[in-house]
């Protein structure tokens, strides 16, 4: 058993970030929430609802980045279409919120959302049925992305579509969905998407407390998903996943049905993306086909790369940092922020090959090097 302990303490380093991460995440979240709800608006420590909403959005993105990192960083599947799963989760939530509007829409139609009224639809399409039930809608928010990921992954991985072929296919997938959702005939509000939400589970979406609530829920779910993912990835399954990344064919020759592992992980990742999307929509107040845009999906990959691929915490940090930079830059230098953001991407790639976490890793490895070279010395002796 002591050997086991030694093994875990020496061989692995990723697991040890989990606790600090969860503590910091939840700590900051709770403090910010409290500061928003209980401090007066003119207090120096007051956190505005704008900030809360923004943070909530960042956390959704962090969750999404996690999903991307799980399959890209750990399994080497570069998905350029994860926005699709995110958006589908978002649409499920959006449909629920749309149904919650009831007869408070501009046309006052109790059954049909406004966009259907003014396109002269007579009845609710079948796929909208049941979406007025919260839990059913939430089920859909994970089932639909999961199912899509399953079908797509099952086809692709069994046919051994890999590498750039897979990446571009995922891109084609999200692009096709983008075009499809743009179509008004699809019944999802076309280009405008779904918006003008009123309340969720009876809580007004415009109330500070609801926003704080959503923010807290996002943080907690992020923490849970982080811990669960960490556990999964440090289990033997995680090692198999890494093995598939390194050499898929070798993994098959020692008996792993790699396609199933990949499908499993892809679905898991898609479900996380779906959850992130579902949490995102009530906080930003709109879901529309733009979320399917391939550029969005590419950006997600970039968050992960900036933070450090193959480390869950890197994905989270990358998402937070890039999006914070975007928020700041678009406000401070609206005419030149693309220069700054573009330069940031280039510089990170050049100088931080393993992302921000790599920087941290470099510092750590200075220490570890000593150990390793000792090992080598001994073995040669």
């Amino acid at each position: 058993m002591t050997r086991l302990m030694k093994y875990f303490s020496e061989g692995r380093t990723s697991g040890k970030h989990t606790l600090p991460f969860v503590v910091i995440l939840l700590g900051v979240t709770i403090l910010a929430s409290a500061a928003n709800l209980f401090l007066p608006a003119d207090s120096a420590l007051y956190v505005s609802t704008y900030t809360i909403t923004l943070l909530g959005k960042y956390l959704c993105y962090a969750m999404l980045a996690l999903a991307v990192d799980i399959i890209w960083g750990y399994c080497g599947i570069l998905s350029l279409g994860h926005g699709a799963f995110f958006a589908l989760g978002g649409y499920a939530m959006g449909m629920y919120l749309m149904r919650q509007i009831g007869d408070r829409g501009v046309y006052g139609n109790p059954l049909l959302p406004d966009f259907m009224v003014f396109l002269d639809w007579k009845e609710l399409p079948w796929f909208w049925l049941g979406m007025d039930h919260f839990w059913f809608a939430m089920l859909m928010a994970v089932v639909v992305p999961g199912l899509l990921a399953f079908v797509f992954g099952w086809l692709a991985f069994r046919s051994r579509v890999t590498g750039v072929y897979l990446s571009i296919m995922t891109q084609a997938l999200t692009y096709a969905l983008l075009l499809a959702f743009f179509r008004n005939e699809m019944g999802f509000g076309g280009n405008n998407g779904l918006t003008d939400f009123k309340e969720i589970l009876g809580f007004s979406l415009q109330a500070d407390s609801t926003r704080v609530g959503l923010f807290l829920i996002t943080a907690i779910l992020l923490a849970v998903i982080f811990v669960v993912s960490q556990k999964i990835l440090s289990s033997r399954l995680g090692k198999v996943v890494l093995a598939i990344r390194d050499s898929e064919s070798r993994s098959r020759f020692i008996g792993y049905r790699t396609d199933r592992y990949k499908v499993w992980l892809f679905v898991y990742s898609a479900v996380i993306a779906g959850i992130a999307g579902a949490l995102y929509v009530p906080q930003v107040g709109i879901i529309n086909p733009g979320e399917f845009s391939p550029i969005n999906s590419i950006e997600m990959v970039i968050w992960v790369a900036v933070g450090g691929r193959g480390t869950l915490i890197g994905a989270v940090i990358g998402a937070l940092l890039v999006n914070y930079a975007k928020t700041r830059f678009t406000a401070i230098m609206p005419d030149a922020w693309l220069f700054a953001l573009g330069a940031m991407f280039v510089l990170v790639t050049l100088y931080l090959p393993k992302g921000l976490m790599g920087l941290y890793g470099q510092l750590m490895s200075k220490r570890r090097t000593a150990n390793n070279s000792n090992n080598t010395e001994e073995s040669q002796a």
Partner: protein
Amino acid sequence: MSTLASNSLAFNTLDNTREFFRRDQVWPFLAPEQAAVNVDNKMILYVEDLNLSFDGFKALNNLNLYINDGELRCLIGANGAGKTTLMDVITGKTQCDSGTVFFGQNHNLLNKDEAEIAQLGIGRKFQKPTVFEEQTVFDNLELSLKTDKRVLPTLFSRLTPTQIDRIDDVLKTIGLAKHRFMLAGALSHGQKQWLEIGMLLVAEPRLLLIDEPVAGMTAQETERTAELLTSLAGERTVIVVEHDMEFVRSIARTVTVLHQGSVLAEGTMDQIQSNKDVIEVYLGEEAAGEEIA
């Protein structure tokens, strides 16, 4: 891959649908236990009339090969004779054009994929050492352990102390005990060779296909490998491909010589070494003598 590509879309959809409704595929926990390998006839591997050509080039040509259970068989033959290709076919990496390959009497290997074949107990070491470069030596071995390789069992499995001991034993055997936490990618060529042998050992397969194990090893290491393989035979069946005649002589009971995709000769080492054809296409006039240090 090639098989899939050759089928029509409709056929494949049907196939996929059928596959989908195979309960053992969809629900891993419903899968029947693997039937044990039937070796009633003492034979563990039957390869018959195997043909395979690449763009007209016949890499395997009516190849027949029978391996007894527990045998240690050496496979030699000129570069390009088809040895590696044969292993590719046996392990499901390459689809052959025609022929049959049975593992025991009850497992047709030709309709199984790599993973299934590996799970049946056929292990392989590649000619060019392939290990998981980004993982530690220890993890490489852990992954190769003989365990339930399905997704959920793998997720919930934990290393047992016996497994750890087993890995430690192997680490010692392959001389990498000190390197257990080194990334496999950082090993030297020879060390990778050993690691790959180690991965075979922990998997405890019924049949080992070993492609050029001693390439890049020193004389002593070669000896050790020879001992190791000899000790495995009996309990396990071993097929070794090697060009090092000294090594082959030290382990071989039966030697099969492949040439241009079919069997040229089969027999004891002495018979082979005096076979004219073999000398001409493979050994060279004075080869055997020269090689001895």
